[in-house]
């Protein structure tokens, strides 16, 4: 969905805010209390998810609420794996996600280079077009795209979830272009003097230098694909081909009240994202401030 425009493209200066340092200690204490209380409220639902996943059904809506179940029902986890074909769905998710990440990286990096480092007439006008496509709502283009896929007999296959990623994503083209533009021109000039072509410079010098930006793109596109609900909902119609998200939705609509297994399954699907986030927090924050992409 259209989510971003141009935002701070420069790195964030780490400047102390002298104003805030002089806010009275009492004021700062109050601020800290407010922040901690609200932070607990933000994290609480996830804690409750964990707690519920270890309860018996009878404990889920007990009054007063049960925080730590009398007996930890670890068996809810294996139950959720069989209730709902977790491993086949995981395999499907990976079949979609991994090529999508590779496709996004390759196509967006190539396109970004064409917009950043090659001089050709009309380049900046065309780049405006890249940004303009971000403003078109998904719904406007969805129906003709769906009909094309249907005529190509791609509906019901993984192809509509994978192939578009090989054709450049405007967000990541924008992000990588900004990064490529920040690299010193001398690098390129030196490479040209050494007889290097665009392809040579791109693959041997620029890409190795751009690992941080490529990491942001890989991470975000992995998460986009893993969490995608909408495209699998529209394009997959055989239950055997479901990804985790759509599989969990399907499972929920059939077993609306099996809260303990539902929470166990939800946590299993959410945990790779949460683990990934903790491992790559810095990359994350940079990526968000860079592109204005919302989660």
């Amino acid at each position: 969905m259209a989510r971003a425009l141009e935002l701070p493209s420069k790195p964030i200066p780490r400047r102390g805010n002298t104003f805030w340092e002089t806010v009275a200690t009492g004021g700062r204490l109050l601020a800290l209390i407010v922040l901690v209380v609200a932070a607990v409220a933000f994290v609480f639902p996830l804690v409750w998810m964990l707690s519920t996943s270890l309860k018996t059904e009878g404990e889920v809506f007990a009054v007063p609420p049960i925080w730590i179940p009398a007996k930890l029902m670890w068996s809810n986890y294996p139950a959720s794996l069989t209730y709902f074909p977790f491993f086949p769905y995981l395999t499907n998710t990976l079949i979609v996600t991994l090529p999508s990440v590779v496709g996004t990286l390759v196509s967006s990096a190539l396109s970004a280079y064409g917009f950043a480092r090659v001089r050709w007439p009309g380049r900046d006008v065309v780049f405006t077009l890249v940004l303009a496509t971000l403003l078109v709502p998904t719904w406007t283009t969805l129906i003709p795209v769906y009909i094309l896929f249907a005529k190509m007999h791609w509906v019901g296959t993984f192809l509509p979830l994978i192939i578009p990623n090989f054709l450049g994503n405007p967000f990541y083209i924008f992000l990588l272009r900004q990064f490529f533009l920040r690299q010193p021109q001398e690098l390129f000039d030196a490479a040209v003097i050494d007889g290097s072509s665009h392809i040579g410079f791109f693959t041997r010098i620029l890409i190795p230098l751009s690992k941080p930006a490529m990491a942001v793109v890989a991470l975000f596109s992995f998460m986009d694909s893993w969490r995608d609900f909408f495209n699998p909902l529209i394009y997959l119609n055989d239950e055997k081909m479901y990804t985790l998200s759509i599989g969990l939705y399907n499972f929920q609509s059939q077993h609306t009240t099996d809260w303990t297994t539902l929470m166990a399954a939800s946590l299993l699907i959410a945990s790779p994202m949460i683990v990934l986030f903790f491992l790559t927090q810095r990359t994350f924050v940079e990526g968000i401030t860079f592109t204005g992409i919302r989660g």
Partner: protein
Amino acid sequence: MTKNERRELIAGLGFISPWIVGFLWFNLYPVIASVYYSFTSFHVVETPQWVGLNNFQILAKDGLFWTSLVDTIYYIVGSVPLDLIAALFFAVLLNLSLPGRSILRTCYYIPTIVPTVAASILWIMLFNTHGGIINETLGLFGIPEVPWLSSPNWAMPALILLSIWGVGSAIIIFLAGLQDVPSTLYEAAQLDGAGPAHLVWHITIPMVSPVILFNGIMGMVGAAQVFAVPFIMTGGGPLNATLVYSIELFRNAFVYYKMGYASAMAWILFIFLFALTLLSMRLSQRFVHYE
């Protein structure tokens, strides 16, 4: 054109060729086709039949279309300002040099990582009328049970409240903007004896106003297209109280396969969003401060 220029042009177009194919396939062709489709009637693989303005005339009399438009406006008006204020409020506080700041920031961001389906199912449980943890907590303050998702009056407020849970990325964007505010401005105002509230109102907010506009427009664009959360949590109910525009569009396209009709709806959404964006840019001119 010299030989060198031509070589550069070919190289440039070569590098951007993945994007060119994607643009033609997923943007240019679909935008043109969907204008045409909106004047036709057909199911997926049939040949579209030209019906002129018929789709729009039927829409004008379609009660569900108007319901979905009203529900979406309700959601936008309820969630966008609320989320914007919440995000700015937390960002200003998080910008203070406080102990544990990065852990706190993580707490606010973590919910946005959770896959939508998992988050939606979780919140169905939290909003449960009897024994749901939200009502139990409110009960501690003597507030009677609220029938959140099962009542037409409360379902939309529930979704709006839930939207606050996703302000983490807006907070991070605000934090980046706040760090760009020159500290000399604060120092100068302080010499004049301004207190913290005064500084926030007269310096912080004007200085980050472009970011407020950015987050506001992005929030509106997102809210106008909200789909997965209401689709999973309420399915548009109860009694169409949360039948947002995207759910109604989805039903017409992928449940009834009325592709021409759905295309007409998609165009109205596009024009609506375009007008909303232009309007907010225009209105903001008086308030947004650019350096």
